[in-house]
């Protein structure tokens, strides 16, 4: 990499300049142009956010900066100029196996991935994996490298680093794993840190801590950061400059304030509108019908007995003494972080799993209350006709070997309503129109539909039997933000037309705030606070809720929320 052509000089404050970058993926019978003529500059000490929805090419772009585009991807044009003294080296021209590019990886540019569990080797200790990066770029001895690794772990705020250095990834929590990943990325003292959706797999409070940490380290070490995210809230909280990507193109670049307050491109505007919309509630009148579902003192304990040979007895209270009512016409949100027990509640309500203790009673259309936990097979079938479930995963919840017509008609057929083929077809068409799908697609298989469309199919299936209550478990979590708000609006509209009640389970506070009348906040299996959504989301009383709400990034760079957030220190369980 000798001889730096004079044309490849960079403006003084730019450390990395991407020009007309294009990357193609050659598939079996077509070429996907994943990245098309992408250009941006990364300045010294600044944070540049690449924001876009799934399939926008943002991750591939980030990886190409380190020569990490994997087959069948191929760099087909453009340059990636990385500052080298007064000149620059074009990373795009380097052989991805060359020594030159290896000297850039880890040493000049560090990389943090989305999924810290799979990004770490399961059979090597954390210390080994970080220490390897340390030694690679420093020439330290083994013992010195170990010292430095412990120091790095301390810097990323892992407590007791001297002991943790010898642990394996599966012994770490999600947040700790991501801290370890960051420590590894910092091992070579890089000038540029690329973080590819670093907090997407994490809970919102952990996300806030990781973003804090990254920000602090960035300032301390004077690094430039390229942050890849789909979350406009994270962008507003962290970015100096923003590049919005869509279908492989950068549609708009600008300062964070300009992007949020004077967006030019229609796509940016649409994206922003979809995000900002969720900043307030959509529900104005809180209905006060009679309770349709009443849950009292519900518990679910998972336990295994200890065995004779060193297996320890194990007991986990997934749901711990939970009580709440769902009123007719109401949207009740259940919000909590991973492991809080919210998904278990959804399954208990449907009796997919049996509760350990407590009761669930349901008021049928005839006005009589029935105890759900003791229903016989016939009663349970009737209950499940009235109370329907919408799944999180739009891909796993539809049978790939059935057509959309068969999927939506399945509950009709099973309950004996689907005798007449013509009638079924008419009903399926009606349901598809109701959820905003073209009935002409009913003979297709699910894989022909996008995530949002599949979620609509799932909703149509739930509506097939004229239900009264719908339990939605993270129903919008797998969707891109613009699709997410469309699906939420669809559900709200259906609720009006069909007088439904919802139990809406989610980790996403903005979705809950938008959709729900009341919210129950869960933490470690217990409901810590329950009340009107507007109240809980703006003025929570409990310290845990306060920390949760204040950790949610705000999609407005003029009102950053996370920096002033409250922290919650969990009391040590007795």
């Amino acid at each position, binding site marked *: 990499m000798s001889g730096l052509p004079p044309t490849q000089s960079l403006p003084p404050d730019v450390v990395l300049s991407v020009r007309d970058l294009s990357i193609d993926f050659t598939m079996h019978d077509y070429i996907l142009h994943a990245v098309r003529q992408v250009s941006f500059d990364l300045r010294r000490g600044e944070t540049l956010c690449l924001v876009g929805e799934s399939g926008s090419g943002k991750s591939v772009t980030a990886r190409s900066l380190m020569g990490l585009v994997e087959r069948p991807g191929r760099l087909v044009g453009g340059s990636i100029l990385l500052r080298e003294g007064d000149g620059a080296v074009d990373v795009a021209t380097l052989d991805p196996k060359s020594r030159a590019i*290896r*000297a850039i990886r880890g040493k000049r540019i560090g990389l943090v991935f989305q999924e810290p569990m799979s*990004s770490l*080797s399961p059979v090597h200790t954390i210390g080994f994996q970080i220490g390897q990066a340390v030694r690679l770029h420093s020439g330290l001895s083994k013992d010195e490298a170990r010292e430095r690794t412990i120091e790095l772990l301390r810097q990323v705020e892992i407590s007791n680093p001297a002991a943790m250095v010898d642990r394996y990834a599966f012994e770490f929590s999600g947040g700790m794993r991501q801290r370890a990943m960051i420590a590894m990325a910092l091992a070579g003292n890089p000038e540029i840190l690329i973080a590819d959706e670093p907090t997407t797999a994490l809970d919102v409070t952990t996300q806030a801590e990781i973003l804090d940490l990254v920000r602090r380290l960035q300032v301390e070490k004077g690094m430039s950061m390229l942050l890849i995210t789909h979350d406009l809230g994270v962008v507003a909280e962290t970015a100096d400059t923003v590049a919005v990507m869509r279908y492989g193109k950068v549609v708009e670049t600008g300062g964070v304030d300009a992007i949020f307050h004077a967006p030019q491109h229609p796509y940016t505007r649409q994206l922003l509108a979809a995000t900002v919309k969720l900043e307030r509630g959509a529900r104005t009148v809180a209905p006060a019908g009679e309770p349709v579902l009443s849950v009292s003192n519900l518990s679910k304990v998972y336990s295994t007995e200890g065995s004779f*040979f060193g297996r320890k007895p194990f007991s986990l209270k997934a749901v711990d003494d939970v009580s709440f009512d769902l009123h007719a016409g109401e949207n009740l949100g259940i919000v909590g972080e991973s492991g809080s027990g919210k998904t278990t509640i959804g399954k208990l309500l449907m009796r997919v799993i049996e509760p350990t203790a407590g009761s669930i009673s349901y008021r049928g259309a005839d006005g009589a209350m029935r105890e759900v936990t003791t229903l016989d097979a016939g009663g349970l079938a009737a209950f499940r006709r009235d109370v329907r479930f919408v799944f999180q995963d739009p891909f796993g919840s539809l049978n790939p070997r059935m057509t959309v017509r068969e999927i939506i008609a399945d509950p009709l057929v099973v309950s004996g309503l689907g005798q007449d083929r013509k009638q079924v077809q008419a009903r399926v068409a009606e349901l598809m129109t109701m959820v905003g799908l073209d009935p002409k697609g009913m003979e297709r298989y699910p894989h022909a539909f996008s995530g949002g469309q599949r979620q609509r199919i799932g909703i149509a299936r739930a509506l097939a039997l004229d239900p009264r209550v719908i339990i939605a478990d993270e129903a919008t979590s797998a969707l891109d933000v613009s699709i997410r708000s469309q699906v939420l609006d669809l559900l709200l509209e259906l609720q009006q037309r069909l007088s439904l009640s919802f139990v809406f389970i989610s980790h996403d506070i903005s979705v809950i705030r938008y959709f729900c009348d009341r919210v129950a906040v869960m933490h470690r299996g217990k409901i810590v606070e329950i009340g009107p959504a507007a109240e809980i989301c703006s003025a929570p009383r409990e310290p845990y809720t306060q920390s949760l709400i204040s950790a949610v990034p705000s999609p407005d760079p003029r009102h950053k929320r996370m920096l002033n957030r409250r922290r919650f220190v969990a009391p040590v369980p007795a």
Partner: protein
Amino acid sequence: MAGYILRRILYMIPTLFGMSLISFLIIELPPGDYLTSLLATMSDSGQTIDPAQVELLKSIYGLDQPFYVQYFKWIWGILSRGDFGYSFEWNQPVSKLIWERMGSTLLISILSLVFVWVVSFPIGLYSAVKRHSIGDHVFTLIGFLGLAIPNFILALVLMYVAFAWLGQSVGGLYSPEFADAPWSWDKFVDLLAHLWIPIIIIGSSGTAALIRILRANLTDELNKPYVLTARAKGLPEHEVVLIYPVRIALNPFVSALGWVLPHLVSGVTIVAIVLNLPTAGPLLFRALVSQDMYLAGSFILLLSALTLVGMLVSDVLLALLDPRIRLG
């Protein structure tokens, strides 16, 4: 770790019990009572056997009693006295006949296993890293052939080739002059000179299978995000591959021991019959054909137990290799 091993060993007991039951069931299958038919054939041919000895055998092994009594007497004899029963054909206790044969079976099985590992590891590694290269295709083809050619056919072909082109007969473990000689360096060398043919024959299909397994696993592992992490550190490609994915793809490779060993033991049995090796195979075969029940049943039981030990070893090795099993 000790608790884990103890658990695995205890877990083996019911399996071993099931195996002994099946072994005994098989030797009980042919209709009639061995002793009676044996006595009949012997008296036909003019031989005599001491009636007192017959009565003794009947009482020890419960030969005139129901199936389950015979089974428990057999098992009890094995557990309490190491007595595997009596071979009527050889007219001596089974335990005198089996151990040497089991020893050579074990030797050949283990050597074949080593052969399988040593050959399949580098080839599997090469095939996975250089996927779709000419070398990969060649190895894949050879692998398919190795899987497709039954052991005994390969043995026949090699025997024919050696006979027709080299003018020498392949078979046995020793040249005639060493067969009954005491152990010496020359005898050892002679043994090695004979061993490689059965080992290659027996190991061929296992090698082919392991190459495919390693290639498939390693290909999966090479696409895992942690490989990208290792590359992003700036590690040279060979270190990326050797330190991370290969290390992890080693686990299924080691656990393959559990099912490769039964496979090899099977292979030793039939190849030994073709090549006339002094292992369990030919004696078992002969015992089965002549319905020498205790000898046959003991061989089946011991060969099964051998594979069980292989599984235990593979479990322990796997736990040593994989912290998720060791600590989880």
